């Protein structure tokens, strides 16, 4: 039985037995290369649920501020986000039912568009790892694996780290060659080059806050960017403001970001948001040996002090 069928079965069971009030998953609304989050409350609707490499949203986003019991379809990275949310008091473990999906990676649409030189995709059909895309004047067969999102290429947690029901067998760990290749390149460049790089990518930001909305961990009641008493950061799209916004947002993810890549995929202007968050995750891992969202009841690495914490920054 394929995973999608299994998933639907599991969802039906949960709803029929009234173990949950809602199942949060993905559905296909017909737009090519996409799925949409859906909220299913009636067991009869479970066949709307789909599971494919276009299920790119991090549905942990929808778990905060709920009072009902929800089942959620969650990939490895999504389950890590859920763990962080539980640790940060945002969800109660007993109120979520995690349908864990071992995930071989999801497709980054933008890579396909780039590949097609922005040709307008009208239709996409997936069959056995091959996507047949059709536009007005072209048809092409593309391999899923050639268009995986960057974060999936260096994914170390493809299987759920926490779940109530796991749909399908565990996948073998990915042979990640150089998780931090791009970061290392950036680290090795001169400060002028780095500045130029960040200036270039961050000046594309139009302050739409899609990244913030997509991020499961950006759940603050009032974001620092929205505050004006005191106003921590200006509201313009001038580079001086966008850079402060992105650096601060990245800092706020320190020790929390699970590298699901939702922010970067949501960005309409292709800002390299993950370069900041991934660099911080790398530092946290190197300095404190910590990876976010792997364990319940784990304290965030910056919220406690150990005697052997690195201190070389104190000069």
């Amino acid at each position, binding site marked *: 039985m394929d995973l999608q069928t299994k998933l639907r079965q599991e969802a039906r069971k949960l709803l029929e037995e009234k173990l949950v009030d809602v199942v949060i998953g993905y559905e296909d609304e017909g737009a090519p290369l996409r799925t949409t989050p859906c909220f299913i409350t009636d067991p009869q609707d479970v066949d709307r649920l789909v599971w494919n490499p276009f299920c790119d949203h991090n549905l942990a986003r929808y778990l905060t501020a709920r009072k009902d019991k929800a089942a959620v379809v969650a990939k490895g990275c999504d389950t890590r986000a859920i763990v962080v949310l539980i640790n940060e008091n945002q969800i109660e473990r007993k109120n979520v039912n995690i349908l864990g999906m071992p995930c071989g990676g999801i497709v980054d649409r933008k890579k396909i568009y780039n590949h097609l030189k922005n040709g307008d995709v009208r239709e996409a059909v997936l069959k056995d790892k091959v996507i047949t895309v059709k536009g007005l004047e072209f048809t092409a067969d593309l391999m899923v694996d050639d268009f995986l999102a960057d974060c999936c290429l260096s994914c170390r947690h493809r299987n759920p780290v926490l779940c109530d029901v796991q749909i399908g067998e565990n996948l073998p760990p990915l042979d990640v060659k150089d998780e931090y290749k791009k970061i290392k390149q950036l680290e090795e460049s001169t400060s002028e080059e780095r500045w130029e790089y960040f200036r270039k990518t961050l000046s594309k930001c139009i302050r739409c806050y899609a990244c913030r909305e997509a991020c499961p961990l950006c759940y*603050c009641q009032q974001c620092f960017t929205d505050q004006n008493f005191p106003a921590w950061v200006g509201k313009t799209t001038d580079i001086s403001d966008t850079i402060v916004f992105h650096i601060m947002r990245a800092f706020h993810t320190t020790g929390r970001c699970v590298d699901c890549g939702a922010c970067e995929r949501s960005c309409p202007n292709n800002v390299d948001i993950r370069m900041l968050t991934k660099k911080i995750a790398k530092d946290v891992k190197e300095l404190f040996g910590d990876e976010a969202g792997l364990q319940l009841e784990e304290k*965030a690495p910056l*919220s406690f002090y150990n005697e052997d914490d690195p201190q070389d920054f104190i000069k």
Partner: protein
Amino acid sequence: MAPRIGVYVCHCGGNISEVVDIQKVMESLEGPVDVVQIKDHEHICSEVGQKLILNDIKENKLDRVVIAACSPQFQGITFMKTMEHAGLSPYVLEMANIREQCSWPHYDYPQEATKKAIDLTKMSLAKARLDIPLEKKVIPIGKRVLIIGGGIAGIQAALDLGDAGFQVYLVEKDPSIGGKMAQLSKTFPTEDCAACILSPKMADVPNNPNIKLMTSTEVKDISGYIGNYQVTVTRKALYVDPDKCTCCDKCVEACPVTVPNEYDEGLTTRKAIYLPSPIAVPHSYILDDKTCLGLFPLACSKCKEVCEPNAIDYDVYPTEEKFTVDTIIVATGFDIYDARQKRVYGLGKYENVFNALEMERMLAYAGEGKPLKDIGNRIAFIQCVGSRDEQVEHEYCSRVCCMYATKLACLLNRERPGKEIYIFYTDLRAYGKGFEEYYKRAQSEGIKYIRGRVAEILEDPKTKKLTLRAEDTLSRKIIESEFNTVVLSVGLIPNEGTRHVAGLLGLSRSQDGFLKEAHLKFRPVDTLIEGVFLAGTVQGPKDIPDSVAQAGAASSRAISLMNKGVYEAEPITAQIDESICIGCGMCADVCAYKAIEITVVDAHTGKKTAVVNEFLCKGCGTCAATCRSGAADVIGVSDHQISKMIEVM
């Protein structure tokens, strides 16, 4: 209504005015309607100056005061009192430090200094506009003290406080009080027998009606704040009723289990049921359930069979006790450095290498005419083992080793004449009262002091004699000589119990790992936690006289707090904007004072937010810096105030 602010710019008798153009500073402040008056003064801290402020507050109906003068660390308190005299909250006073932060360091740049003075004063003005007239929080405070650790420091503090009529809870984790001093043979420099001078004091403890002694007890949890510390302790099960036990020793004879005796540093054995030491207080046998053959199920029960007064009861369990105290004295003492880590000295490998505490015990036995072992005639002491040693990360001097080695050497020498005793030292420190004289006497008695670090010790596997190789750094000769016994003068290190208590109370530690005092010079027994004091070696290596002195100091600090009946706490504390807070708990995690708890504030919606306990909060602002959404802030130094200060710069 706009505030009415009065500004004073001080000349500080030329200290400021010789560099900073006071006139310009005053002119720069003119304009805003809320600045009601701007005055300068030669010495605003003088009595005349203070009167001027008092007068102006009354006449001009000032409700904020800005003083551009010296550091608030220096005269802040003076002016806060002036504010109080005038009937204003001391927290609507702002000081711009245009001396230490301006005229002094920028002496050679008067123009720039003037500019900076203007900036600093304007910033204070901006902050003053948003100041809130905070009131000091008054906490009632009673007369109950918790003393953790029953070494000489804890005992002394308990007796001082008990005699003064305070209710003392003395908690000791071991079965007897006395600490390390109870293990010593004699004490330098007077060579009083340690047990003789200590045991009367130990005996006074249970006899004092104001002291509740709890031995074999550990502190499990402490919460609350000065005047209201909630303490939970766990009391081990001892299985022997001290009221019934007649100390007949029959159970000991019956008990089949032998284990190393802690009191003798493992040099002798004890049974699983035993008297902790001959001078133990409380003086009763106890059963050590960790080494007993077994109580659940009962494996042996030989002790109970022979116990005539029926004092042994196996059906007892550890208990928890809770009580409330107003102040706490931490006197958890020290541990000795485990010299096995210094492999070259062979402790743990060679049977004739001892640490100093073992030698104390051997001498105590020898003093009673029951030597444990013949230690031969040639004895070497090696100083600074685990002290002043960067390799083992103990850079500090342990302060007592030079003298205790001298003491042990003298005692050994006198015990049986004909001994040759060498002390290998790096530097000899005889700083205390009577120490230098003692050292001189030891030399005259024939103890040989050799300046040089010992490189290694080798054991003859057959004779077990030790060959010691060292360089005499004074004569630059290599010494290689055979000894019967080597004593390692081990340093004092912070112990596990202290770490535990420091964690419970959120006490900070100095670089060396000992607990940190609030101010090394002026508040040596206070900690940064209100109502918590330090006594004895928990704060750093020291000898008995210093430990006792510190215990006295700690108890008098505690008394002076408690005698007032109320405690006035700073009103500058963290504040949570509940409408913004999402209860992520980051602030609670980082708060060193455990002042924040995540609490359900709306039962209906289940909304959780951070809640600050204003008595525990020290206003350090760590939560404010941590909170991602800016919900946490510090009243009196708010983000808003600071951003306004930055704006006017």
